[in-house]
């Protein structure tokens, strides 16, 4: 393994690990907030219990997210010092703002988790609102920085150095809006369906449990709308990539030859040497429409890109197709659940829907991982699109396979511990049958 590959693997592994916890850190506060708000409105103690149980899980996830995020902020320099030397002053602004957003999130999460008995219910709910808002904002700021790597703006390049640095223009880079919307929706969809799947599984065992019934509805209320909006946001993102990063777009779609009326390539095995996708289903003219809104538009293929600037086509193509497939499955689940709710059927009684939701539970997260593979692998060999190659950014430190191996083992162990602890938390969930004393309305703050 070369040092460059080890550095890329370590960074990729650290990101893939962190993003799960980052997504949960954005999504869970909203779920807790809805539950707590329902409790304060209705006095139904099941909702309070739900908010408190979810808060425990969130505490575990947030702690792992905070420390793995710290690792990443150091790794930017430890692995990519030349990238940071170049890009720090240009895209540092979103990182600074992210620092403050994360600060706010950490402060009010502390208040939220440990403050149940210490502050008034209203203040507690307000702390939750601040956690949810600042969590979403910190995600947005980080994604803005990533969008800049895809569509760098806000500087002029003179003999390899950035001059006329304009950090505001860098923040307003073309991909910023589409990417942040796509990622924020993804966070809500992944968390909502992740949680919904867990409670659906428990409802299959105990259909009368009120705790899980309420949990399922709240989780779907957060995850469902996000999943429905995601294809629209994805379409905007794809058009942006087609316009700004034609090589990435061509790799995503397995599109080798430039041409008008380009077909959409479904599945298949891309063969970069033969410049074709084997065993694929081609849908005529659809790619042109998806990329440029016109069935006869010309779509740039990889043949227009120098061969040494191609990303890994099979990996990017498969990641993209998987992301779309997982996303579509979540849309299907949302529509089925909405239909059942529309017909006033109790969701907990729809056993086949519950089974589908269990199946969907990891899909949002898998779609997030696949989507990041598309973004990051699709930009290679560049770390800053068209400006700096990843190979130019890497540290001169030798033997990078050692920290890569070590961090991988550490994160595998942490993942095992988190799964173990979450299982413990979930198995402890209360047995609340239909309308026992816990569900009876109580005065607030009792």
């Amino acid at each position: 393994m070369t040092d460059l590959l080890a550095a890329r693997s370590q960074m990729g592994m650290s990101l893939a690990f962190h993003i799960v916890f980052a997504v949960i850190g954005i999504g869970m506060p909203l779920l807790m907030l809805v539950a707590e708000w329902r409790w304060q409105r209705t006095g139904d103690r099941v909702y309070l219990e739900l908010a408190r149980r979810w808060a425990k899980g969130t505490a575990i996830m947030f702690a792992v997210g905070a420390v793995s995020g710290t690792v990443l902020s150091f790794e930017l320099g430890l692995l990519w010092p030349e990238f940071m030397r170049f890009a720090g002053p240009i895209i540092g602004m979103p990182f600074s703002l992210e620092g403050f957003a994360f600060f706010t999130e950490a402060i009010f999460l502390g208040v939220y988790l440990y403050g149940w008995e210490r502050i008034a219910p209203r203040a507690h709910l307000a702390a939750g609102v601040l956690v949810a808002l600042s969590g979403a904002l910190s995600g947005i700021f980080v994604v803005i920085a990533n969008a800049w790597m895809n569509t760098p703006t806000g500087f002029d390049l003179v003999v390899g150095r950035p001059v006329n640095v304009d950090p505001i223009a860098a923040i307003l880079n073309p991909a910023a809006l589409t990417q942040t919307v796509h990622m924020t929706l993804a966070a809500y969809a992944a968390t909502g369906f992740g949680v919904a799947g867990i409670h659906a599984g428990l409802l299959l065992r105990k259909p009368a449990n009120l705790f899980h019934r309420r949990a399922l509805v709240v989780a779907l209320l957060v995850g469902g709308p996000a999943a429905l909006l995601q294809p629209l946001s994805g379409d905007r993102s794809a058009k942006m990539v087609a316009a700004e990063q034609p090589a990435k777009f061509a790799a995503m779609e397995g599109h080798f030859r430039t041409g008008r009326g380009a077909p959409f390539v479904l599945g298949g095995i891309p063969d970069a040497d033969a410049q074709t996708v084997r065993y694929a289903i081609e849908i005529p003219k659809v790619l042109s429409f998806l990329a440029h809104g016109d069935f006869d538009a010309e779509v740039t293929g990889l043949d227009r890109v120098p061969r040494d600037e191609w990303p890994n086509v099979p990996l990017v193509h498969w990641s993209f197709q998987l992301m779309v497939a997982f996303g579509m499955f979540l849309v299907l689940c949302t529509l089925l659940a909405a239909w059942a709710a529309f017909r006033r059927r109790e969701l907990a009684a729809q056993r086949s829907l519950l089974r589908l939701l269990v199946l969907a539970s990891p899909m949002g997260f898998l779609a997030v991982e696949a989507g990041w593979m598309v973004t990051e692998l699709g930009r290679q060999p560049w770390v800053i699109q068209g400006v700096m190659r990843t190979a130019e950014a890497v540290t001169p430190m030798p033997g990078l396979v050692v920290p890569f191996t070590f961090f991988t083992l550490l994160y595998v162990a942490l993942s095992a511990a988190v799964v173990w602890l979450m299982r413990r938390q979930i198995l402890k969930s209360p047995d609340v049958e239909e309308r026992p004393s816990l569900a009876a309305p109580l005065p607030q703050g009792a």
Partner: protein
Amino acid sequence: MSRSAHRSRRRCRRAPDVTLALVLAGAVMVGLTAYVLMGGADFGGGVWDLFASGPRKQQQRALIAEAIGPIWEANHVWLILVVVLLFVCFPSVFARISVALHIPLTLMLIGIVLRGSAFTFRTYDSQRDDVQRRWGLLFSWASLITPLLLGVSAGAVAAGSLPAATPTDFVEGFVAPWLQPFPFAVGTFALTLMAYLAAVYLTVEAFDGDLQDDFRRRAIASGVAVFLAAMMTLALARGGAPLVWRGLTSSRWAPLYHAMVAAAALTAFWALFTRRVRLARMAAAAQASLILWGWAAVQYPYLIPSDLTIENSAAPPATLKLVVIALIAGLVLLVPSLVYLFRVFKGVPSRRGA
């Protein structure tokens, strides 16, 4: 080149011009001070978890867990703020530190990951003794290693031993800069200082007299250790960190500075002996802050001796200006939030007394 000549002329003046870069270097130091005073004490708490002993062993551990539980994540963000300010405002400083100190920083990160996750896992895992002890050991050992490595990294910067050119030899480029007596003396100094801060803070938060006495004794003992570590660091600076040695022994402000540190330290000791724990907390925090700012003063105007200064490593003015605006806006949000956090959780001293 004419710009740097201009800068060096400027450096000769006695009072420094207040530039944006200087303000932001100050902000980095403020962030670092906040991290040591708050996050550092959380690590110190972990150290006392490891050394919990005597008849009130369990109560000591419970007090530590209760003291750091709600606040450690917020305290930890100061470090992220320092890192971000460094790479935005002084990118070449960040790049050089990251390259030369790759090994100690990576080890420190592992400590940070294990400390935070083990502490949280212990809180939410089974309350059975053996499970608690296992997570507790991981938490407390990580709390001991991390400040040591943070100190080693800071010491290597102060020693002026980070190579300017891209290193070709592995040992020379990536090991020699920090595997020296002086950085390890600073590491020990940092570790004892954080343990001392934690012990002093815990005397204020203890909910009964016996427990308070446990931490009072620990505060006094670790205060002595801080003094010894400081003397060792100073002695090793003579050969290992010329800028530090010169600044602390022959600069014009050195006598006044030593007098101030001594006054803070003696006040803290006197207050600990006479059970004025709140005064002790203030004095110990002042002592730690003076130590950090003393480091900044001996190194001024260098961020990395002996070529990267505050001015010659600063990002373009457009960036600096925006960061200052963001800092002001951020602090307007942050300060009331932090005050609120500490008032909610640190306002009532003896909450479990009854």
